[in-house]
């Protein structure tokens, strides 16, 4: 970064399938209030606001940042709205970081949310558009063929997806904010209904209501804050088109390019050994081994071996998604910022019961579209 940028406050809602007690504004405000409290700040201290969420039809409010301006303390401040599909939460946090790195803004409030219960996500995301081949199977049906291709390419055994899901659930059990927290075994995952073969019911993400807010600040403000900041060492978003002939949808080049770029900027040569925890965007269990490869944590076709060895579990070599991840909490637009925010909490040492020991460097990751949008942030305990 041209100028150091830090996360100095993190706030999130308890995520659940339906927040019937609050409207969209009030739900988002819970996360904002907690982030400001965490940072020891008030709205007056904030110079600008960066808001991200997934498609507007999920709540049926167009550009909701305009309606939310008053609720977010944005009155007479700059606010912008980012939308980069599923990656948006992480990209929004990185956009906030860019604002701080520019030197123009000292402290930024950044927010991501989704209140999926207001509408019907299945309808909002894949209705039958005119002249477009209908998406005949929903999001799972879109991604499942790539999971199948991964299995075919890598020779991964069939239980890997269930192992990922069970581990994620075990982790979510330690995260008071997670949506799904009931214990679940590998066998239960394996015996759950096959929805979109090879993806089973317990290997898919839920539909959640929730929000997360972060306060990001420059070095001066970060050092004067009440808590130990999480420093952003590097962050980037890379994107690729859908219909490039020969595009590798299993391990997209945009993801590999993005990972290499941030590792170079952060001075990381060996991510497997230099990063202590990773929050990666896994909406369907098989994406965990796929992204382990895409992110350079494992050689090509060997991501599943990490899972099979258990090296991704808490207390092992590289805990993946100690928060429980997207598999257990998925307010779509917020999911990417939750990864980024959880990575920040880990390097701050404030992740509570799901804290990983001795974290110096953490990775937050999100992807979106047809595995086209990639967004990665590297957070560190020391500048």
């Amino acid at each position, binding site marked *: 970064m041209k100028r150091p940028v830090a996360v100095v406050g993190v706030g999130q809602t308890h995520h659940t399938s339906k927040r019937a007690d609050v*409207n969209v*504004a*009030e739900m988002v405000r819970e996360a904002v209030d907690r982030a400001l409290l965490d940072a020891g700040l008030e709205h007056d201290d904030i110079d600008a606001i960066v808001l991200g969420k997934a498609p507007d039809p999920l709540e049926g409010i167009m550009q909701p940042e305009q309606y939310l301006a*008053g609720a977010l303390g944005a*009155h007479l401040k700059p606010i912008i709205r980012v939308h980069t599909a599923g990656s948006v939460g992480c990209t929004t946090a990185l956009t906030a970081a860019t604002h701080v790195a520019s030197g123009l803004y000292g402290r930024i409030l950044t927010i991501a949310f989704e*209140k999926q219960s*207001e509408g019907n996500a299945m309808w909002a995301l894949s209705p039958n558009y005119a002249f477009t081949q209908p998406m005949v199977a929903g999001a799972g049906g879109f991604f499942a063929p790539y999971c199948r291709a991964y299995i075919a390419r890598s020779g991964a055994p069939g239980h890997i997806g269930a192992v990922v899901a069970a581990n994620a659930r075990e982790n979510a059990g330690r995260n008071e904010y997670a949506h799904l927290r009931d214990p679940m075994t590998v066998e239960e995952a394996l015996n759950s209904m096959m929805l979109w073969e090879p993806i089973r019911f317990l290997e898919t993400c839920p539909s959640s209501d929730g929000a997360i807010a972060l306060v990001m600040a420059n070095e001066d403000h970060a050092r004067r804050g009440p808590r130990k900041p999480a420093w952003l060492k590097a962050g980037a978003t890379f994107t690729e088109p859908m219909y490039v002939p020969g595009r590798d949808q299993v391990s997209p080049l945009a993801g590999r390019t993005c990972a290499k770029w941030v590792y170079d900027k952060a001075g990381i040569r060996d991510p497997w050994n230099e990063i202590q925890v990773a929050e990666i965007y896994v909406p369907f269990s098989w994406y965990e081994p796929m992204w382990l490869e895409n992110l350079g944590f494992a050689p090509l076709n060997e991501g599943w071996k990490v899972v099979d060895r258990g090296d991704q579990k808490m207390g092992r070599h590289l805990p993946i998604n100690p928060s429980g991840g997207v598999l257990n909490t998925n307010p779509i637009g917020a999911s990417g910022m939750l990864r980024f925010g959880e990575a920040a909490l880990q390097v701050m040492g404030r992740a509570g019961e799901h804290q990983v020991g001795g974290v110096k460097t953490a990775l937050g990751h999100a992807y979106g579209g047809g595995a086209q949008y990639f967004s990665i942030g590297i957070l560190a305990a020391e500048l």
Partner: protein
Amino acid sequence: MKTFPKPATIEPMSQRMNVEFPYKRSTGEVVGRFLAGLRDQKKIWGLRVSRQGVVVPPQSYSEVDAKAGGEWVEVAETGVVTAVAEVTRPIEGLHPSSEPFAFVLVKLDGADTALAHVVLDRLDRLRVGSRVRATWAPDGERRGTIRDIEAFEIVD
């Protein structure tokens, strides 16, 4: 080798369709009680919040400084028009009337902000500054929405 015909030679292909989405919006405490006041009490409530005074219709926070909370204040069903937009050709499926009507902002007596609503009659006499009074949907037909106030009518 065949190349694509020029646009002028191709009959455009188009399709009209209505994109329909149902939503069930959670109101929250303040909006929900305000709407219940319209439905159950035929009363209009405002919330006194930080740096805005009595806001009608209320949110659970100040839109000026984002501070939460406030105290309920009942305001009058009469007030003064602060802005008028006279719709001569209503838009089907969007506007609340199929006859010419006016959108208005009304600052109710006792309120510090103005409420957006409609005036349906005597549009020729409607001005910024006109005094108006709320008219209500009949008992049993109020559903707990802002349209429980049917409209505002000019007070002579």
